């Protein structure tokens, strides 16, 4: 995974690297940690089990990490689901989850 890969996938690389005090290698090293499948699985399972409180915590944690790394394509749907889960809204989440998974997987393929 390179900086260019991330840029091509839509990450706001300049912002992310700046946050890492200009250290691109450090930035690239952090991205796989953010994409760890277990984080997304937790969110997925909790949402499907309608455990909205736990689902919110998982989404909120992902939101923080993805936001700091400026992985915008995943960050945006995560923000959307976080807001819905914050008020524990019992709405169909399938499409949103699918978008999240798809975005996450596109990034993960480059690892």
């Amino acid at each position, binding site marked *: 995974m390179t900086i260019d890969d991330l840029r091509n996938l839509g990450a706001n690389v300049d912002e992310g690297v*700046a*946050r*890492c*005090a200009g*250290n691109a290698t*450090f930035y690239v090293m*952090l991205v796989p*940690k*953010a994409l760890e499948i277990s984080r997304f699985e937790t969110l997925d399972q909790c949402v499907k089990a309608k455990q909205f409180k736990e689902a919110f*915590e998982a989404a*909120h*944690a992902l*939101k*923080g*990490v993805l*936001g*700091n*790394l*400026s992985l915008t394509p995943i960050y945006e749907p995560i923000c959307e689901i976080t807001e819905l889960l914050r008020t524990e809204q019992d709405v169909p989440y399938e499409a949103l989850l699918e978008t999240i998974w798809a975005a996450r997987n596109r990034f993960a393929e480059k690892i």
Partner: protein
Amino acid sequence: MEDEEINRLILSNILEKEFDVLTAANGQEALEIARREYNRLSLILLDLLMPVMDGYTFLEEVKKEPGIKGIPVIVLTSEREAEVQSLNMGAADFIAKPYDAPEIILARIARVIQLYEDKNIITATQYDALTGLYNKEFFLKYATLFDQYYPDDEKEIMVINVNRFHVINAMEGREYGDKVLAAIGKSIKEHVTESMGVACRYNADIFYVYGKNEGHEEKLMQTICDALKPLLEDADERIRIGVYSGMDIGVDLSRSLDHAMLVCNGISDKYHRKIVYYNAQIQEKEHLEEKLMHDLDRALSEKQFKVFYQPKYAVQGDKPTLSSAEALVRWMHPELGMISPGKFIPLFEQNGMIGKVDRFVWKEAARQIADWRKRFGVTIPLSVNVSRVDVLNEELAGELRTIVDEAGVDAKNYYLELTESAYVDDQSHIVTMAQKLREAGFSIEMDDFGTGYSSLNMLTSLPFDVLKLDMVFVRNIHNDSKAYRLVEFVMDVARFLGVKVIAEGVEYLEQYEILKKLGCDVIQGYYFSKPVCAEEFERFIKE
């Protein structure tokens, strides 16, 4: 502290260039680190949503930790509402998520640290560390501000003091003494918070309270005594409050403080009343004392002081014979008339000015001995008073020797009266000084014997030639058997020590006869004569 490792790493990477960074994954872990390392911590960065202990709980817990609660906390959050809530809970600032550019974060952190350091410096300068009250400089500043807020209200100032506080420190240790002071400080703080006043610890065990004159002093006294009960059983006896009130307080605050301090210091153990108010009578006394202090130098140069002489008679022969006299000072003030020594001697003893008066009397007495010897051909020995402050002067013996030598008087005819209480103050010093004076040829009379607290054991080690029995013992000797037996006992002691006894204050024939019978050597008092001027005294010489 941040539970997300990635966020922790990003932040650490930003901060490590300027700070040593300690990390924790939850509030509990952070609290443990903070307890251990609080001396090294300049700032805490706090995530809010964390497992085990969240950021809000951490903020609550920190308030209970004296070491940590002064460390500024910046909250890391992406939520608007959380920003407000955390600021309300004591956070110094917040950093939004996703994080701003590193330079913005560093600038915000630097600013908060600077602010807190400044605040801590101000706090340290402004407050007394032990009690949390203002220190005296800031007290005066805030008292002036208080006046500006309440210009039309009558104010009062209280000086609060613990009687014999040094004894608590000496007996129970300084740490215990500090507990006492802290408890007083806490009570005063509660009081001023409620009454909207201003308070400080002036120094050691002296506190000032300034506020509206609404008669709070009884309540404050009660609050302090209640708080002190577990530490001091006799708190009620020890706490003293001096009060000054009036519309003019603010005009000269430090003078008003002096007034309150004056009355506070005047409250002795014997007083039942432990709250005393500065009043017109005290003011009058204070004004008189100020005038006397102001006029002293002029009085000496204008010879307003006169030396009077009270004869002392040797009584063990067939008939009493004039043996010597005591030189006593009188002040003929041009405006106030004759001022009683009782008004100016204790005052000048207190402020050390008595030395000037004593020197005048010493010289005058030496000159008088020489003058009478020249004119009447007899030497009338004179005794002069040596004040406590004189005794501290290492040059005393030499100085007195010069005085008698210059007058051409033999030191053996020049007696020095040292008060008994001076012996008690610093025994070793006074013993050395009395020895020096005797070596210089002077006789020492222990004055006011019986009013001090000399132990019998101490008497044997003190160098003196004459014991001067205080008039309180003589006063009732003819109608009180206990007084009689006490004098009898003192006579025995004097005989045992091989010293003469002079009884002073003898007024009546009965007293004279009893004292003579008991073996008293010399008698001084109105029975023979009141103190008279030199010219009048010459009548006794002629007789």
